[in-house]
Every structure is written in structure tokens, then in C-alpha cells.
């Protein structure tokens, strides 16, 4: 039985925001709502900057489901956490409960209007007929019903973001970690230059005449 999850490889993510763009385009998400976003730590610090792409993690024991006063959340057979927008009252409890800040609320109206909650659906639509116009309008594209994976993961240029059954993507990640090594090999020095870093002495340019070393 599949348990759909996301896994973001911080060593590969280059903060291109391709996943964010893919999600917004595929699901036609309105302005002000970001189902997915890229978070960067140590921004600008050489060697310490890391980025990860974050969205709903489709928790196995989802706190949003636990706190929802109208019980509009459900989990599909393949482990995707979805909700019924016809039932949602936009109270925001799920936003406070979620450790990832996944629930989003459209604020298109005046006076701080908070609309019905919107979040990543793992490109699995919602409780409307699959691939219907109603489903697309409320929840976005249903790619799982087409035998495809979420657009963000399939679009990721460096394959930092993996999506799919937790066991399968964990195996992919494990193999990747074992093969890529560590240090400068993490970002492909050997495959790019054919030598291990440190195998040759660094070539220094001669200092210009009169310059202090």
C-alpha cells in the first residue's frame, strides 16, 4: 500500500523556485496563496546556505485533522491528506496546528477576509468527480488519477524534491547519499572535473608586480 510523501534533498535544492512555479501553474493557484514555498537557511553564507521546498507533508497523524472543528479533512487510501472546501469554515485552526505552515487562506476581500483553506493536495484533487471542472476550480489538477506524480516533484530540475510512496523515495534518497559521497562531491566536483577535490594543488595566479601578498 502506497503512502504518498514528499522528500526534499537540501544538498540538491538550488532555490530556483521551479516547484513553486510548477504548482501555481498546474493548479492555477490565486495570488497570495502559495501551496509550496522554498525556505532558505543561512542565506548568503558560503558553504552553509541550504534550501528546502516545503508544502503539506501529508502527515500520517495529521494535526490539522485533529483540530478541525467541522471535520472536513480525510485521508485517501494512498495516504494523501485532503479536505472538503464545501465544509471548511475558514477558521484557521489547521493553520495554527500545522508545523509546516501548509494551510493557506485567500485574502482577496476587504477587512482581512479569510476565505476557505487551500493547501497542497499532492496533485490529487479533492472530493469532486475526478478530472471534472468543479474539482479543478476548487482543488486544482488531479494528476494522481492520470497516473502522474505531483507537478512540483516532476518539474524539479535537480531532482531535489522527490514525491511518491515513502518507501520508494526513501530508497532513491538512500542510494543517492551512498553514491555521491561527501564534501565537494556533494555538489558533483568529481563528476564535473574528473578529479577528487584536493588531488591537485590549487593553481594560484601570480601576484601582480608590486602587490603585497
Amino acid at each position, binding site marked *: 500500500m*502506497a503512502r504518498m510523501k514528499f522528500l526534499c534533498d537540501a544538498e540538491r535544492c538550488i532555490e530556483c523556485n521551479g516547484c513553486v512555479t510548477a504548482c501555481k501553474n498546474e493548479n492555477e493557484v490565486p495570488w497570495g496563496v502559495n501551496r509550496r514555498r522554498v525556505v532558505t537557511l543561512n542565506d548568503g553564507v558560503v558553504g552553509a546556505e541550504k534550501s528546502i521546498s516545503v508544502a503539506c507533508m501529508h502527515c500520517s497523524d495529521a494535526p490539522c485533522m485533529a483540530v478541525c472543528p467541522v471535520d472536513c479533512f480525510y485521508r485517501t487510501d494512498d495516504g494523501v491528506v485532503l479536505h472538503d472546501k464545501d465544509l471548511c469554515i475558514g477558521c484557521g485552526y489547521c493553520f495554527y496546528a500545522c508545523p509546516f505552515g501548509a494551510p493557506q487562506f485567500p485574502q482577496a476581500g476587504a477587512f482581512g477576509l479569510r476565505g476557505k483553506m487551500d493547501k497542497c493536495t499532492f496533485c490529487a484533487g479533492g472530493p469532486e*468527480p475526478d*478530472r471534472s471542472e468543479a474539482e479543478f476550480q476548487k482543488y486544482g489538477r488531479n494528476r494522481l488519477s*492520470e497516473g502522474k*506524480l505531483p507537478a512540483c516533484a516532476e518539474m524539479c530540475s535537480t531532482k531535489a524534491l522527490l514525491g511518491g510512496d515513502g518507501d*520508494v523515495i526513501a530508497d532513491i534518497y538512500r542510494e543517492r547519499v551512498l553514491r555521491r559521497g561527501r564534501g565537494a562531491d556533494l555538489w558533483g566536483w568529481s563528476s564535473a572535473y574528473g578529479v577528487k577535490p584536493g588531488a591537485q594543488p590549487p593553481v594560484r595566479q601570480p601576484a601582480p608586480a608590486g602587490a603585497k601578498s
Partner: protein
Amino acid sequence: MRALLLVAAVLALGACGEKEQVVVYKQGKYQGKPDNRSWDNAPLAAEFRGGQWKQGDRDSWEDSIKQRQLSQNEYKRIYR
């Protein structure tokens, strides 16, 4: 003296009946509309590059989506 002992015992055992003060969040029961399952849909035509499975057959859908997941592993996809 006996009455005093009884009162002391009642007071001492009183704490045993204390109720749990921590809030226990319980999962609710979904109140919304039912949803379709992915494998109950017919696969797309080949030009749309979706998965191929037998309609209504969960196992074949899972096999199809697993092949798609494995294509994320470029060590297998490119360097096989």
C-alpha cells in the same frame, strides 16, 4: 481515633481519582463528500504521457505509479 484514620485515608486516596488534565486531541470523523479513488479512473490516452493501468485495479495502478516514481532516480534512469 478511628474516625480520624478514616478521614486521613479518604484524603490520602483522594488524589487517586484525579482526572487527566491534559487535553487529548481526538481525530474526528470526516463529514464531507466521498471522493473517488485514483485507480477507478480510466488511464489517459498515450499522447498525454500518463500511467497505464487496468481501470479499477489498484495493484496495476500502484505498479504504474511506482515506475513513475523510480524515474526520479537518475542513477537508474541515466547511468544504468
